[in-house]
C-alpha cells in the first residue's frame, strides 16, 4: 500500500510535534484519563450566553460582502445520501467550482464532501480547480465497525485521491471512558491518511451529551494529531450549535498556545442561513482569532447554506431580494 511508504512522514507531521509539550499525557490510559478529566469544567450558562451575545453583532454592507465571500470559500459542499449518483456528484462538483455561474467573481467553495466510493467521480468533477475533495470514512456515520475495516475505508478513499478524510470517533468507547482506544484509533487513521490527506475528526457532539465531554473530545482529537476537529455528521438531531463550536474554538486556541500547533474547526449540519454563517465567523474571529479566518483552518459542512449565501450575495450586488429560482436545485 502507498500509505506504508508515507507513514513516517505522517508521524513527523501529526505525531511528534503534538507530543512536545504534552508528551506524557498519552503514555497510558490512566495518564490520558487524568489529563482529560483534569481539564477545567465548562460553565454551560456562560458558554451559551457568550455564544448568544456574539451572535447579536450587526454585520452590514462591505463587511457583510466580505463575510459572505469568506463563508462561500469555506463551504465544504456536502452530499452524503444513500441515493447519491455519479451525476449528482458531478453536478455538485461543478457547483463547487462555480457556485454562481452568472457571476464569475463568486469564489469557489473549499471542498466537496462525499462518500469514499464517489471520490474518484468528485475528483474528476473538480479537476483543474482549487476545490478539494473530502471523503467521509471509518464507517461513517455510526463508526461501528472493526478498526481494520475503518482503515481499509480510509486507505480506499486516499487511494482514490481524497485530499481530506472526515473520520468519526468511536463514541461508544469515548462514553465508556475508554479514551486510549479512541486515541489509538485516531492515530491509526491519521497514519492511514499519509502525508497527502488532512484528517478531520468528527465528534458527533449531539451524542456526547455534555459540554465537558466536548472539551475532552476536542483535546483528545488534537493530541492524536487531528488537522481539523468537526462537530457532527449532520445525521443526528442536534448538530453544530454556536455554543459547541465556540467551545471547540476555545480548545484549538488553547492547544496552539500550549503546543504551537494550529488545528482547524469545522461545524457541520444545521447551518442553513447566511445569518447563521456570519454568526459563526464572528465566533471564530472573537475566539480563535484572525488566523483561523481562512478556509485552511475553518470550514462549514453544509449543503443548503451555499444557496442562501448566493442569494444574499445577489441581493448585495443588485439591491433586490433574490429567490430560489436563481440558484441551482441540488
Amino acid at each position: 500500500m502507498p500509505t506504508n511508504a508515507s507513514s513516517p512522514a505522517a508521524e513527523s507531521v501529526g505525531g511528534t510535534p503534538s507530543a512536545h509539550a504534552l508528551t506524557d499525557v498519552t503514555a497510558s490510559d490512566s495518564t490520558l484519563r487524568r489529563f482529560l478529566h483534569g481539564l477545567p469544567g465548562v460553565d454551560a450558562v456562560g458558554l451559551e450566553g457568550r455564544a448568544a451575545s456574539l451572535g447579536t453583532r450587526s454585520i452590514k454592507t462591505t463587511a457583510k460582502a466580505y463575510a459572505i465571500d469568506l463563508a462561500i470559500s469555506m463551504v465544504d459542499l456536502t452530499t452524503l445520501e444513500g441515493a447519491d449518483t455519479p451525476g449528482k456528484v458531478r453536478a455538485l462538483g461543478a457547483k463547487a467550482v462555480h457556485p454562481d455561474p452568472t457571476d464569475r467573481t463568486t469564489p469557489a467553495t473549499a471542498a466537496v464532501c462525499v462518500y469514499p466510493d464517489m471520490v474518484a467521480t468528485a475528483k474528476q468533477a473538480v479537476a483543474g480547480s482549487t476545490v478539494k475533495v473530502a471523503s467521509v470514512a471509518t464507517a461513517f456515520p455510526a463508526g461501528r465497525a472493526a478498526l481494520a475495516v475503518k482503515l481499509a475505508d480510509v486507505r480506499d478513499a486516499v487511494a482514490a485521491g481524497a485530499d481530506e478524510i472526515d473520520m468519526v470517533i468511536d463514541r461508544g468507547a469515548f462514553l465508556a471512558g475508554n479514551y486510549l482506544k479512541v486515541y489509538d484509533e485516531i492515530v491509526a487513521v491519521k497514519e492511514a491518511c499519509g502525508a497527502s490527506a488532512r484528517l478531520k475528526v468528527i465528534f458527533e457532539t449531539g451524542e456526547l451529551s455534555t459540554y465537558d465531554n466536548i472539551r475532552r473530545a476536542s483535546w483528545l482529537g488534537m493530541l492524536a494529531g487531528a488537522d481539523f476537529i468537526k462537530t457532527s455528521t449532520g445525521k443526528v438531531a442536534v448538530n453544530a450549535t454556536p455554543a459547541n463550536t465556540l467551545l471547540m474554538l476555545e480548545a484549538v486556541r488553547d492547544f496552539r498556545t500550549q503546543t504551537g500547533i494550529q488545528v482547524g474547526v469545522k461545524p457541520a449540519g444545521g447551518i442553513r442561513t447566511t445569518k447563521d454563517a456570519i454568526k459563526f465567523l464572528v465566533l471564530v474571529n472573537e475566539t480563535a482569532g484572525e488566523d483561523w479566518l481562512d478556509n485552511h483552518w475553518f470550514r462549514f459542512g453544509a449543503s443548503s447554506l451555499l444557496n442562501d449565501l448566493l442569494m444574499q450575495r445577489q441581493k448585495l450586488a443588485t439591491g433586490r431580494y433574490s429567490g430560489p429560482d436563481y440558484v441551482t436545485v441540488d
Partner: protein
Amino acid sequence: MSDKNDKTERAERLSVFKTYKLYVGGKFPRSESGRVYEVSDSKDNWLANVPLSSRKDARDAVVAARKAFGAWSGATAYNRGQILYRIAEMLEGRREQYVREVADAEGLSKSKAAAQVDAAIDRWVWYAGWTDKIAQVVGGGNPVAGPFFNLSSPEPTGVVAVLAPQESSFLGLVSVLAPVIATGNTAIVVASEKSPLPALSLGEVLATSDLPGGVVNVLSGRTAEIAKPLAAHQDVNAIDLAGADDVLAKELEIAAADNLKRVLRPQPVDYTETPGIDRMTAFLETKTVWHPTGSLGASGSSY
C-alpha cells in the same frame, strides 16, 4: 360574592387594549424593526398602535408565502373552497368586531359599516364557490388537427403581492385578497396605510379557519416603503397595485418588470358590485398539454 360587589368591580375595570400584530407564516409577530405607528379614526381619535413593517418583514413574508405555495396550490380546489367558506363562517361569528372597526376606520354609520362587513363575508362565500369551477370556465379541451387530446388548465401564478385598497379597508381588502388565494396562489397583503385594523384582525380569523400558515401574510405600514422591495423581489411572481397611487404604481411597475412579474394596474372599482372573474384570471397561467389518443396506426379510427 354579592351582586353589589360585582357591580363596583365592573365599574372600575381597566380597559384592555388590543395589541395589533402582523400575520406572517401563520404566526403573529411584531415588526422586525420594532417600529409602530399610530392609527386614528376618521375624526382623528387615537385607536391603536400598529406595526410599521420594514423591508425585512416583507422579505420574511415572501419566504413564508413561498414555503406555503406548494401545499396550497397542490390542495384540491374543493378543499380550498371549503377553507374559504370556513373563513366566512369565522367572520360571521366576529361580525360585531368588524362592524366596529370598519365604522371607526371609514367614518361610517353602524348600519353602513354592517352592510360593508356583510358584503365582505358574502364575497368569501362567492369565491369559495368559484375555486372548483374556474377551471371549467377558463380551461378545457381544445380541438386540434391530429390524434391528440389537447387540454388547457389554469394554474396559479405563485406568490402574489397585494396592495390592499386604501379607502375600502375591509370589503376592498377581501375583494382583492380572496380571488388571489381562491385559485391557489399565496399572498402577501399590504394593508391600507391609514386604516389597517380590519386587515390585521382578519389575520386572526384566517389563523383559525384551517388556512395553512403562510398562504396569507398581512403587513401594515407605509405602503410605499413595503411595496418597493416587494415589487423588486425576484421571488414574487405577481403584484396587484390596487392600493397604489398613480406615481407609486408607475414606479412599482418599472421595478416589477425586472423579473417579468405580472402586474395588475390600479383601476376604478365599485367593491359593492359582483366582481366577475377578472381578478382570478389576472393571477392564473394556462398550461396546455398534448397527449396522444392512442388511435394511431392500423385501425385508422379516431377516438
